[in-house]
């Protein structure tokens, strides 16, 4: 699913060049649940931006779902993001004063397929159903709890049925009980076959994944399966 080889990303800070990512190679198969860990400054945000096709590497190779995306122009990257990656952010990034259903529909506005309003609504309802929020389609973000808002964001990420779900500190703004709920949702999505990349700095959170990649100073420190995997108390996802 994801093949990166010798990925380097440098930033210019005035006179100096800072290597945020220094030759990272990684291979992630379809259906995996990988946590990318590391303290701040370890290069995990840079890696996430590259994996999410928001940024292009200075050098190295990146194959996403069989497509070489390392040298693509921004316009094509936008199409790749729309079709292949579902983003979940720490701060949810929902449009205020806009219903949950319309928030979920958003990626469809930019999709290659032109869908009618009715088709978009149907897909949004289906997606909200997957995260257990079918009954809240008309609620605006301010009428939803933090956990519910993050579920809406996950429904938005799922609507284009992307092969990869990329979650950047998805539990960072949530209390521990709600975090468990969201991580449980990720686990059930993964059980259903979805490839998930989870970026976090919390070991507790990372232990919900099946595999942990730890970064330090722009290099991979370790890459190993999770031994004592935590299984979040599941609520039935489709409820």
């Amino acid at each position, binding site marked *: 699913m994801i093949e990166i080889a010798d990925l380097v990303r440098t930033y210019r800070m005035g006179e100096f060049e800072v290597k945020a990512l220094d030759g990272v190679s990684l291979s992630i198969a379809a259906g995996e649940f990988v946590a990318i860990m590391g303290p701040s400054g370890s290069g995990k945000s840079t890696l996430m931006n590259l994996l999410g096709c*928001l940024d292009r590497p200075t050098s190295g190779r990146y194959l996403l779902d069989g497509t070489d995306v390392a040298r693509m122009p*921004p316009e094509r990257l*936008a199409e790749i*993001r729309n079709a292949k990656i579902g983003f979940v952010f720490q701060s949810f990034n929902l*449009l205020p004063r806009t219903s949950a259903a319309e928030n979920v529909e958003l990626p469809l506005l*930019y*999709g290659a397929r032109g869908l009618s309003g009715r088709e978009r609504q149907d897909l949004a309802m289906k997606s909200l159903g997957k995260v257990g929020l079918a009954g809240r389609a008309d609620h605006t973000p301010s009428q939803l709890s933090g956990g519910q808002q993050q579920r809406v964001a996950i429904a938005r990420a799922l609507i284009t049925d992307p092969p990869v779900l990329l979650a950047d500190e998805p539990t960072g703004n949530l209390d521990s009980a709600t975090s468990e709920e969201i991580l449980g949702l990720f686990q059930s999505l993964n059980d259903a076959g979805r490839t998930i990349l989870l970026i976090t700095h919390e070991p507790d959170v990372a232990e919900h994944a099946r595999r942990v990649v730890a970064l330090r100073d722009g290099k991979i420190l370790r890459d190993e399966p999770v031994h004592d995997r935590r299984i979040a108390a599941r609520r039935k996802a489709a409820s």
Partner: protein
Amino acid sequence: MKIATLRAWSILKVGVRSILRNTTRSILTVLGIVIGVACVIAMNAVGSGASKSIQSNISALGTNFIMVFPGAVTQGGVRITAAQSSLLPEDATAIKNECPSVAYVSAGIRSGGQVVAGENNWGTEVFGCDVDWPFIRAWNVERGVFFSEAEVKAGTKVAVLGATVVRELFPDTDPIGSVIRIKNVPFRVIGVLERKGGNTMGQDQDDQVVVPYTTVMKRLTGAIRLGIIQVAAVSPDRIGQAMDEIRVLLRQRHRLTQAQDDDFNMRSQEEIAATASQTARTFSVLLASVAAISLLVGGIGIMNIMLVSVTERTREIGLRMAVGAKARHVLGQFLLESVALSIVGGAIGVALGIGASLLIARFAGWPVSIDPGGVAVAFFFSAFIGVFFGFYPARKAAALDPIEALRYE
């Protein structure tokens, strides 16, 4: 094609919704456009209305019409405002007898006055003139007769009433044969003038009582000099010649030397019309400059609010880019929003402009005419303003880096 249309429609809906969310702010933003467009519409309506009104008034004045006013008198090289009129009744007679290009002459003198008829009274204008006056002004007597030469010579107390005066003094009865009192002097009503309506300046021409000028001089004011001499040339192409003849004659009669200026002023019908068009044009230019400034300010207002909007919605832009929006989608969205704003402003402006035109019509007495072409131009111009002033903020939004935008606080 279908896909592109669907997408544009969805994006437009998003834009319209974001405008509706900030109703007050949106309305304040488009105020400049509203005023600008309203001014353009009103300017058009007033301009074309005034020129139509002037054309119809030229013929209403009478054909080949020339007015001679008393003017400045020069004494000992010092030009002073005339203490008394320079025109005498004999000047009028001389013009009639000695100027070959002149067909009709009427000496004129005005006197204001309260006119009383039975229980009714009405403050109006009393105009004294000669028997040629109806021919000069091309103004017929509707009922009864105009006064005769003998009545002018004798200074008889007879009056011909304008339609407005009849309405005010004789609402139910036939005025012919009745007696009215002007400054306590009784006058017999012998005729009623046909209705003429407002003149170029919007005054009601039917609000006057016409009497022999000799009667005004002898019975009402005691003046021996004239307020005006009205003249009709024999044909339109001899108006200039008639004016030359009158000038030579009056200079000679007033014993003016070469060095002295005329002690009278003349204006022809064309000059009066030109003055009126000039007034209308000045008004139009004024409105046009208000419109231009207002549209400019309105455009800057839109640019300003769009810049604020781009900053406020930086994260939204970042998110849209993350889920697949390309630079041109973001550009299009913000352009559409600013165009939608300015079109809403344009629409309100059109409505307001038509309203203002009708008000101007009512109060200035100008028959304004609203030109659909002008309305369309104003409307599309406001859309253009939206594109022009929306482009910079939209480009700024489209140029955002999604990573930075998502992280923006």
